């Protein structure tokens, strides 16, 4: 067999610059710790009567959403506002995108406003990296195709740390449609960075090989500290897809019911939930559920991400800031 050493050094991708947040793969553990600590400072600030901080006054944050989103777009917009940045949210419907404008031209148009940060959600992998290259603006990936959703993973880590007091050694069972989930991809990388362990559980064709230990046996969730439930989409059942025969069968085999959750386990879901399909309503509304915490924590984690990018990782001085605005 041929010696495999040879891929020319310059044929491998270069290390990405740290001026964007495109993927969890771009982060080191130190970066994650700093972001979580910053988020916690902001969480404290959010307990005060005046929640708005002057930190990013005069900065412009553009939220550009090529896919529908409730949680992510509202939380980025509110995060920017709480930091006193100017914000503008654009959605693909009702914009020039409807008229067939290319992503490159839309990006160049928006870049002409000289935004400090472009927050982008797009149905295709690599779109945020593309916009970063095309415009030179700082870009935060708010979800691209099935590729990455790094702020979701960060808010999930933050939520787990708040619930368990630690991340190291935590065992997370990720249940459902991993194949089509950007949330799962980012979360797996994030868990590895902080020393937590993951097991993938779901229908065989929806568990890509090589990402993490995987099983189709739902019993495997018994050993986990966190049951992380992914959204199961109707289109996976359509003719020609055949990932599972029916939603009914999916729910029977992999749905998270009260009987499948043991004491002490916590249940998370990135939303939007299909109650009665991948998660039983009784579980979603139980004390074990961290779903609402995830949304609440999304705000401070996204504040931390914006702050970190625009201040090059300077530690946050919340106390000094609070009350000034």
């Amino acid at each position, binding site marked *: *067999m*041929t*010696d*495999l050493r*040879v*891929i*020319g050094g*310059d*044929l*491998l*991708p*270069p290390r990405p610059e740290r001026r964007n947040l495109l993927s969890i*793969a771009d982060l080191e553990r130190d970066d994650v710790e700093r972001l979580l600590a910053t988020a916690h400072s902001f969480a404290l600030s959010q307990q005060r009567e005046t929640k708005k901080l002057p930190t990013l006054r005069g900065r412009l944050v553009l939220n550009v959403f090529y896919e529908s989103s409730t949680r992510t777009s509202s939380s980025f917009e509110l995060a920017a506002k709480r930091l006193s940045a100017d914000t503008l949210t654009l959605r693909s419907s009702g914009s020039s995108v409807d008229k067939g404008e*290319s*992503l*490159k031209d839309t990006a160049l148009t928006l870049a002409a406003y000289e935004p400090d940060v472009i927050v982008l959600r*797009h149905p*295709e*992998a*690599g*779109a945020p*990296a*593309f916009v970063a290259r*095309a415009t030179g603006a700082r870009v935060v990936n708010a979800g*691209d*195709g*099935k*590729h*990455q959703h790094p702020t979701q993973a960060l808010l999930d880590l933050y939520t787990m740390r708040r619930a368990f007091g630690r991340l190291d050694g935590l065992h997370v069972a990720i249940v459902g449609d991993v194949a*089509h*989930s*950007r949330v799962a*991809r980012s979360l797996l990388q994030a868990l590895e960075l902080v020393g937590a362990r993951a097991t993938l559980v779901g229908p065989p064709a929806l568990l*890509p*090989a*090589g*990402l993490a230990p995987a099983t189709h046996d739902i019993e495997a969730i018994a050993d986990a500290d966190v049951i992380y439930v992914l959204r199961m989409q109707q289109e996976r059942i359509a003719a020609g897809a055949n990932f599972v025969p029916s939603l009914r069968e999916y729910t029977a085999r992999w749905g998270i019911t009260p009987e499948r959750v043991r004491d002490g386990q916590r249940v998370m879901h990135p939303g939007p939930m299909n109650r009665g399909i991948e998660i039983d309503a009784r579980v979603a509304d139980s004390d074990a559920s961290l779903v609402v915490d995830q949304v609440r924590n999304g705000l401070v984690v996204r504040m931390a991400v914006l702050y970190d990018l625009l201040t090059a990782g300077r530690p946050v001085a919340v106390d000094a800031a609070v009350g000034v605005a």
Partner: protein
Amino acid sequence: MLAGAVLAGRRGADNLVIRGARVLDPVEGIDALLDVRIDGGVVAQLGEGLDTNEHRVVEAEGRLLVPAFVDPHVHLRTPGREDEETIESGTAAAAAGGYCAILAVPNTDPVVDRPELVRGLRARAEAEAHVPVGFMAALTRGQAGEELAELAELAAAGAAAFTDDGRPVAAAGVMRRALQYNAVTGRMIAVHCEEPTLTRGGHAHAGAVAAELGLGGWPSLGESLMVARDVDLAADTGRPVHLMHLSARESVEHLRRGQSLGAPVTAEATPHHLCLTDEAIRTLDPNLKMNPPLRTAADRAALLDAVRDGAIAAIATDHAPHAPEEKDVPFESAPFGVLGLETAFSALYTYLVEPGLLPLETLLQRLSAGPAAIFGLDRPRVAVGAPANLTLVDLEAGWRVKATKLRSRSGNSWLLGKRLRGRVALTVAAGRVAFER
């Protein structure tokens, strides 16, 4: 005779003396510092201190003179997408890459599936091509994979070979009939091996990298299943099949199995599959998106082994120009295909020969004698009496690949910004200086 019939382009009668180069023709068994005199486009004399006969003299000391290259797989995008490539620009790129002949595939708009289209393209090539071109015709009407194209009429019009490249002949029954009927033409059938129900929605090799990046997978099985079928069909019919752009180690295993049983199967590999693995796509650069996709280190190693021992006898660029607005988009929106003609030798020399993975002599054969033999073309050679099809290479020259410097009308090279070693200095094609730096 066949070669004369299928290649269309200007032929020359240049007079030239190339002096002092290291002349290397592995098939002829030549490796020596020699002068080469070309009279009227034909190699007239090899020797030391040749009389120049008042010919133009090219001083070539320190350079390498080799049989010019033959590319059996080029997308000239003509007719239909002349904004991406024309016969003129594509053959200029070929000449700059050291090629003396190329074969153009027929997945154009319209598809080349009628004799008058072949004749029209050949007439244009006679007028504007920098190096001779053989035009391949579709194997099935409209490349739809259902009804056979008029293979005999197409061959009579000058079709160089047949292929539905860009798509597979999905139905085994159609492929078998094509192989049987093709006995009347004697031309090669070249196949793009892809099982469409396994590759639908695929953007990258179905492996760890695609899983991590969340890209739809194009599995090795999507290729190798069809390779297995076509190898068995070649054995069954006894009719030759050429497997285009192999990418997976399982495909190489099927190829070897067929060859060991005496099935008439040949194959090609591309420079990008020989130099890269799917690790390279982590940047999601659309210039690393091609069909079939880049695969793993083990696949690359299997291809390289096969190129080394000759199971894969040809290196083909699958030169696939795309307009900037098509490639300047996110990875998943981008079409498949990358450029190859102008960088093939340099890339293979830099990434395979210099690190000691492939002997130079082997590379030269796979770029020239190998593909020529598969498609029944005259072998370019450094020999008295042979038409001058020669490439002069400066192995010491380093150069950086820049889109604006390419002769192709498109810039979608996987090597943009890379520094390569070894550069073509002069190409003589069909007796005519086709390129000179």
